[in-house]
């Protein structure tokens, strides 16, 4: 089962439509929303919250509208604010068009955000064991029933590819039973031939590279023609 956000290979979305000279933010509130999400930080940014937006709403909402819905949801879920507070304050701004949001500066908080944003902190963890696969190994992407959030897209499941690179060990992002304490795993870059993924509708001479956590993969028989 996959969610609406798992879009690889889904038909019918039409042409890609670039916008000439697109601004970074189309509206002032988008910039504020971006700043809020980023400075609220990791504890409050949740891909799962974005992915669990009701599918028709997900498809019809802009990127920052989804961020807004997700951040609201997480803040309420964590008990930081209540739906009533938020409703009340939204009503206040609706009836006071000139009103601006409260302002307060917190130097300690500010420097923490700055260092998180601009300082180089590699997400790779120290390896405690050796990797199960090595470059050149043929693997199959597993078809796993997840509890929700996963980074294993539907379109590679059950398909065979070849390990291209071993990146090292990273935190495991998926929602799993008793989600505490899932140890970090090796991440691999795996190469799939377009013909393996898309069969007769594949474009000629194409391949796909994708990053996979070790538990997404199982050993598979040799696959001819992939190098």
């Amino acid at each position, binding site marked *: 089962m996959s969610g609406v956000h798992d879009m690889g290979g889904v038909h019918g979305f039409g042409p890609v439509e670039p916008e000439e000279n697109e601004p970074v933010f189309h509206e002032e509130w988008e910039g504020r929303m971006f700043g809020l999400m980023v400075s609220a930080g990791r504890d409050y940014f949740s891909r799962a919250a974005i992915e669990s937006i009701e599918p028709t709403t997900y498809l019809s909402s802009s990127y920052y509208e989804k961020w807004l819905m997700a951040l609201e949801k997480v803040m309420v879920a964590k008990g930081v604010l209540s739906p009533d507070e938020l409703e009340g304050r939204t009503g206040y701004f609706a009836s006071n068009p000139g009103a601006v949001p409260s302002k307060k500066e917190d130097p300690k908080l*500010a420097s923490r955000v700055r260092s998180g944003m601009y300082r180089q902190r590699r997400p790779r963890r120290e390896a405690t064991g050796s990797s199960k696969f090595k470059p050149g190994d043929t693997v199959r992407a597993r078809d796993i029933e997840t509890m929700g959030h996963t980074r294993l897209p539907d379109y590679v499941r059950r398909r065979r590819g070849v390990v291209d690179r071993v990146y090292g060990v990273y935190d495991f992002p998926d929602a799993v039973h008793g989600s505490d304490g899932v140890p970090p795993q090796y991440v691999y870059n795996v190469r799939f031939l377009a013909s393996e993924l898309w069969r007769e509708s594949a474009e000629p001479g194409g391949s796909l590279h994708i990053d*996979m956590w070790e538990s997404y993969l199982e050993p598979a028989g040799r696959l001819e023609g992939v190098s």
Partner: protein
Amino acid sequence: MSKDHGGDHHPEPEPYPALRTKALESLLVEKGLVSSDVIDELVRSYEEDIGPLNGAKVVARAWVNESYRLRLLEDGTDAIAELGFGGAEGAEIVVLENTPQVHNVVVCTLCSCYPWPVLGLPPTWYKSAAYRSRTVMEPRSVLREFGLELGEKVEVRVWDSTADIRYLVLPERPEGSEAMSESELAGLATRDSMIGVQKAKSPATVG
């Protein structure tokens, strides 16, 4: 949505997300979860400083400096940090080199992962359902919509960013750019060429 920012004299009712964002900002500031000046600063940095010009400097350096190019392909993160770029959504960057035989293009099918320190925030089309759904399945057809027609013998390699690694494409140095300086070359490395949906600009098209 209205694109009219000059609404001081004729204020329109604000759209719901704008009101809601103001409400959320107020409450989070009051509760001490965010600091107002940081929000101002983040908006300003991503509007003015952190964008594809950073990536273009990296590309231009690789075009003129062979040992830099090799370092960039060996460890993108470190080589990019040499030019002072790095940070959130780019803590590990892998650089993919386009050649006459192989054309790389980057997508994120599950959300919109993108190398912020070198390209800034992604354009709307990169986050669109159309780009996310189609690029993995029919990259040539997507590239054609960007005006890029690749020869039959070229291998199209699509990179779906699903983990913590972010990808930057090193486009081919365009023909006719031999005499150009590093800073002039940076003007040829467009955002789209570093995502891989186009080639770098030809010097002939640059005034």
